[in-house]
């Protein structure tokens, strides 16, 4: 089993992903430079956090046209598991692999803190180790994390159970105060129609050891690795 981590100029969470998969999960992980045309047949693809191309124009707008992205789209098309974290989520939206877009936080601040999210879908390959309604603590670190989409898109996401995570308070309520960036309907992460592409702004890969303040990200990594193991012949 091998996980490919795509590195763009400006990615800065690529090693966090690498360490989380290799050291914590014991999975073979490797980097793929954005100029590569092939992913070399991985079992899952991670688009890590960071500031690809300096976030120039819009976050993720330029990375979306990196040569490697054709292979990522093809991989997703074939049903391969693709996880986009933070800048990776922005890139997936820009690439049209996920609907909507991420815009500047309504607070106008870069937010770097630990937030709470509620698991809204526990049936996806990324969330099967959680239970619906479970509250997790994940770190965030972003200036452009406000999820926007038109109402029909948002209604569609809700109706098809594709909102994976929502920002909530300690009591599990999706209040405005618990929403760190002004995301529509407190959305923190979404799935594509088929359920094989997940984008989220919080960083599960930075919540995998007690030292980091939370181990709640382990469930996501275990879900992903578990579904790969199940899929393997």
């Amino acid at each position, binding site marked *: 089993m091998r996980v490919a981590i795509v590195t763009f100029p400006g990615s800065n969470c690529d090693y966090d992903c690498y360490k989380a998969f290799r050291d914590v999960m014991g999975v073979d992980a490797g980097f793929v430079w954005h100029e590569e045309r092939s992913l070399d047949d991985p079992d899952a693809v991670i688009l890590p956090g960071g500031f690809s191309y300096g976030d120039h*124009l*819009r976050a993720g*707008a*330029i990375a979306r*046209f990196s040569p490697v992205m054709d292979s990522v789209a093809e991989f997703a098309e074939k049903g391969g598991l693709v996880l986009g974290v933070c800048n990776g989520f922005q890139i997936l*939206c*820009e690439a049209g692999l996920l609907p*909507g*877009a991420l*815009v*500047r*936080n*309504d*607070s*106008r601040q870069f937010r770097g803190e630990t937030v709470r999210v509620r698991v809204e879908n526990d049936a996806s390959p990324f969330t099967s180790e959680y239970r619906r309604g479970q509250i997790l603590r994940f770190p965030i670190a972003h200036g452009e994390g*406000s999820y*926007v*989409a*038109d109402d029909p898109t948002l209604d569609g996401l809700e109706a098809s159970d594709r909102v994976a995570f929502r920002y909530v308070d300690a009591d599990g309520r999706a209040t405005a105060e618990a929403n760190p960036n*002004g995301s529509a309907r407190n959305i923190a992460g979404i799935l594509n129609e088929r359920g094989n592409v997940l984008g989220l702004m919080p960083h599960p890969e930075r919540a995998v050891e007690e030292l980091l303040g939370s181990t709640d990200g382990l469930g996501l990594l275990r879900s992903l690795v578990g579904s790969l193991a199940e899929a393997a012949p």
Partner: protein
Amino acid sequence: MSEFAVEVRVVPRAGLLDPQGNAVEHALRSLDFKEVADVRVGRLIRLNVEAASAEAARERAEEMCRKLLANPVTEDFRVEVA
């Protein structure tokens, strides 16, 4: 073929929260420009485009907007050819 100076204006879509615009509006009002409202901050992209005609240059620039320069989910654009 000739070269045309093209200006592309990209602005946040109406109805979409524009924190940058809000910040500028607050600053202006605190400087006593109380008459301002609805400040939106967008982006001006100026480029030269080689094309057979001004219309052709516009068409290419609009294509650039749809593909890269603007995000149709969050932004509107306007193209002006000098």
